[in-house]
């Protein structure tokens, strides 16, 4: 009988203890967690070095503009983000190996449950430097593909 009483107390305590921890997670965090688990996130990285050439600035600028133009919602809700990273900084050198970088590059990486599942080098950005619309469309198409793949 005492054993049953002890078990009931333990179970009751454990239920009460678990309630506050759930309540402390905000609705936004819950939403984010669900989204990360179900739909994942897409990261757009523009990698450059200390030396910045004219075309390198153009690629960075067009990439940012295309992403902000076509994916404002996804940028807001965290499904997509854009980062500019200098691979000449010692802490970023690992990206050279991670994404097999051989020049300034725009990389689209897909993450699910906190793990990277796919990535692609948008190497044709170099071909579209002189055609802003073609550049935008290329970035748009590739990011749409990545978002659909989530």
């Amino acid at each position, binding site marked *: 009988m005492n054993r049953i009483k002890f078990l009931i107390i333990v179970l009751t305590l454990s239920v009460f203890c678990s309630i506050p921890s759930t309540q402390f997670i905000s609705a936004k965090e819950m939403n984010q967690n669900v989204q990360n688990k179900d739909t994942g996130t897409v990261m757009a990285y523009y990698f450059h*070095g*200390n*030396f910045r*050439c004219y*075309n*390198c600035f153009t690629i960075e600028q067009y990439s940012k503009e295309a992403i902000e133009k076509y994916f404002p919602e996804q940028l807001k809700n965290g499904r997509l983000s854009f980062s500019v990273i200098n691979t000449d900084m010692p802490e970023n050198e690992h990206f*050279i190996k991670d994404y*097999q*970088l*051989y020049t300034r590059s725009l990389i689209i990486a897909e993450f699910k449950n906190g793990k990277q599942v796919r990535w692609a080098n948008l190497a044709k950005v170099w071909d579209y430097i002189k055609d802003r619309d073609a550049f935008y469309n290329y970035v748009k198409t590739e990011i749409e593909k990545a978002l659909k793949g989530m």
Partner: protein
Amino acid sequence: MDSSSIPVLSALWLGILTSVNPCPLASNIAAVSFIMKRLDQTSSVFASGLLYTLGRVTGYTVLGILVTSSLLNVPQTAHFLQKNMNQFLGPVLIVTGLFLLGLFQFTFSGFSFSEKVAGRLNNLGIMGSFPLGVLFALSFCPSSAALFFGSLIPLSLNHNSPILFPSVYGAGTGLPVLMFAVAIAFGIKNIGALFNKVTLVEYWTRKITGAIFIIIGIYYVLTHIFYLQIL
């Protein structure tokens, strides 16, 4: 250009695209001035241009072989060449320019080398073009790295051609520079001949070459060592 039907021409086209790109413009200007330095001898200008192109061909071919045979890792090699070679290039160009102008003097055991070195560098007009071609070929800038590592190397691998394609690409990068240098040299020489002052023109061309080397060397030091944004 259809790369599947005429792949060798694609390699040549990629080389031409590399040389007309604004990114390696500074090194191309230095190359043109170096090639046409001996414009008193027309055959020297042409031979110098050919050797410069051969230097580029050699640089890209050796690199192409090492990369396609996986002896060198593409990302690390590309990163190393873009960063270190350009840092090395600046001081080399400045020192060469100073010697060409005869401004760089140093003595060793009471003996001045400046005259000897300057004279040797002037005579190096032909032979010096070859190492200059190799050096400039391996000093990758972002757009030439994109064309070489991103387009040329995959093309070579697809066609199982680790020597021919990089060689043709190298020729493509050197040809516009060679043609430009020869055309300018002929033009200047003819103008000089018109006024019967070829020797004077030739003297100034050498001085201008030295000055161009120093200016471009300073540009490389500022942009690749101090990372100043100039263009």
